[in-house]
């Protein structure tokens, strides 16, 4: 580092042009650059599970599509009043399960999903909605209905994504 002393003042002046890196810092930066892109954790994976890998205490998502899918699934499966602090969070589909078999079930479900997505995940583009029955899991006492949603996230270059949720209902 070059320095020179001014005669008229009693202090030093440093020249930025001569500022470099220490040898250790140089080695560290080279090592990082030389490896593949390090994927940083994006969010906590649900259901929550302890991690035994390299993602820290909990299992984490490292891919954006997975994180969005996870969030979307949670949005679809959450009902109003279940999220603390955000009463209207969720697609609120469970209450529709009691109206299973009614003609306007599909219409109501579509409206609710679209409303929830437009508020909490507006970056998702909803493509198709497909209700289905899982007869093998339907008993006399407890019925269930499935909802299959096809979606995309243009900003993340995700297209033709599909997600299924099952809604259990009293028969």
């Amino acid at each position, binding site marked *: 580092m070059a320095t020179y002393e001014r005669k008229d003042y009693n202090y030093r002046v440093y020249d930025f042009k001569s500022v470099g890196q220490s040898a250790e810092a140089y080695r560290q930066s080279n090592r990082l650059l030389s490896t593949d892109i390090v994927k940083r954790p*994006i969010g*906590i*994976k649900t259901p929550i599970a302890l991690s035994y890998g390299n993602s820290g205490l909990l299992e984490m998502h490292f891919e954006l599509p997975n994180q969005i899918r996870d*969030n*979307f699934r*949670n949005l679809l499966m959450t009902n109003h009043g279940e*999220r603390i*602090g*955000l009463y209207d969070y969720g697609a609120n589909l469970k209450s529709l399960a009691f109206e299973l078999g009614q003609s306007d079930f599909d219409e109501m479900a579509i409206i609710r999903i679209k409303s929830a997505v437009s508020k909490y995940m507006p970056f998702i583009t909803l493509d198709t909605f497909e209700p289905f029955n899982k007869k093998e899991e339907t008993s006399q006492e407890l019925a269930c209905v499935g909802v299959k949603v096809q979606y995309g996230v243009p900003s993340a270059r995700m297209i033709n994504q599909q997600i299924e949720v099952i809604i259990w209902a009293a028969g």
Partner: protein
Amino acid sequence: MAKKLVNKSYLAKDFISLRADLLNYAKTYFSEQIQDFSEPSMGGLLLDMAAYVGDTMSFYLDYQFKELNPNTAIEVNNVVNHAKNAGVPIVGASPAVANITFSMEVPAKQKENGSYEPNPEMMPTLKALNTVVIASNGVSFTLDEDLNFAEVNDDGILLAKYALLTNTNTGAPATYIVERDARCLSGKTVRETFNIDNVAVPFRKITISNPDVSNIVSVTDTENNEYYEVESLTQNVVYKRIKNFDPNKDTVGYNFEIMPAPFRFVKDVNFNTRLTTIQFGSGDSTALDDDVLPDPSELALPLYGKKVFTRFSIDPNALIKTKTLGISPKNTSIAIQYRYGGGLNHNVPASTITTVDKVNIQFPQAATFTNPASIINSLSVTNKVEAAGGAPPLTIADLRTQIGSARNQQSRIVTQQDLLSRIYTMPNNFGRVVRAGLRKDERNPLATQLFILSQDINSKLTFAPDALKMNLSKYLNEFRLISDAIDILDGIIINYGIEFTVIVHPNSNKSLVVANAISNLKNISKLKYFQIDQPLVESDIINTLITTPGVLSLVSLAVVNYSGGRGGRIYSDYSLDISKNKFKGFYIGPPGSIFELKYANTDIVGNAE
């Protein structure tokens, strides 16, 4: 280890701002571990939960802070506690007061001068508490104090009104209808007994079974000890009223006595249930260690193992306190007589209290009866005016309103306003001071001269009787600062008259204009507008005269002093040349004086030109 400094903000209070702060914090310090804090993500969920906890704590912090202020407190118990701290008494529904006329038929008796009057030996006394009348809506009214039909004034004249009812065959009066008014309070008076076991329980509490207790008449135990109600258990004396038999008993019905009250209790009313609980002291009368009455000499500090002692603080009330704070009863039976009930429906209309429910009559010992039952059966009652004062229980809003004013209350006389308030609020049974004035004593810087005046039966100012001064002295002595001296003196009554001449408009009736002018002067000269040491303002008189319709101008005006006897009227003996005591339009009397237009009908003389 040095404390790690973290950039924290304490400005956030609500959910949104707390979440925003937490999000900023997480992104700053944990961006390497987690990036997604959007609402649908688990990270967002954790932020929401933390913000929710903060929001809840913030809410309750605000809530608790608001509960500290009686004006913003919401919880009933907190408002009630504020009220108690401020000295606001918690009461239930209030009873109504009715002025009830009791009348009965009494045999006539011929006096020595040959005239007739109701036979005083046949006129009974109605005993308080045991004489109950009922209104048409079923509300009971109880006689508040004994009512003696035979009571006479200082001149020996019956206080009761009477009128001839029947004559004998010879035409002589046979019976009279005699009536007296008495104050009755609504509500029922009952007696409730509580058995107390043989265990010393400090500060024992007893809850009375009926709500809205308006008055605890008496609390006695089987040993005939009477327990007195006090404001706090540290008060160890009470005032007791003693019937005044002096000639001035018309003005001062009772005299004060201050008596120790080792048997005492305080009462507390539950705001929600309106039930009254009385609490006794902690002392055991059978224990030798407990002083029922305090011995000040025992307060000396022991100097164990020391040769010096420092300045120490002391509560002056300690001198009148005992360790016991009153006796706690045990192994006895407590009888509580009390009156309960009240409300708006107790304000019954006039002439609706007509039924005698029960009556306790005591005839004079000298009575010789031929048919006492006829006298008793002839008793009838009515209320000429409606009952008033009944009120529903206090609401929370009522309590809040009263707390502010109650904070100014104190039980010591410090300022002149304190002293005047104490004088005017002394119970009327001990004599009534209608005017009181204060002046500094020029000879004694620690003394205050207190001038007082009373009213006679005709509502004219008169000197306060000595018994009233004695009562006032005992009463004030309990509240005054020990270094203060109060000289209770008679006020000076200056009776005056007004003489005026006015020019009346030619189109007006002179007599009528003068009559109106005199009437207007009467109005401004009423006693209620005058206080001790208040000057008489000439401009007020002039203004009243010239603003009377029909008066064109004021020719002459004179304010004159009347004293002694004058035309059969008796004035104050104090003589003052009022015209010589005029200063810048004010007629100023001597210290402690008050101007009184005693006979308004004759003391204002007007002429018209």
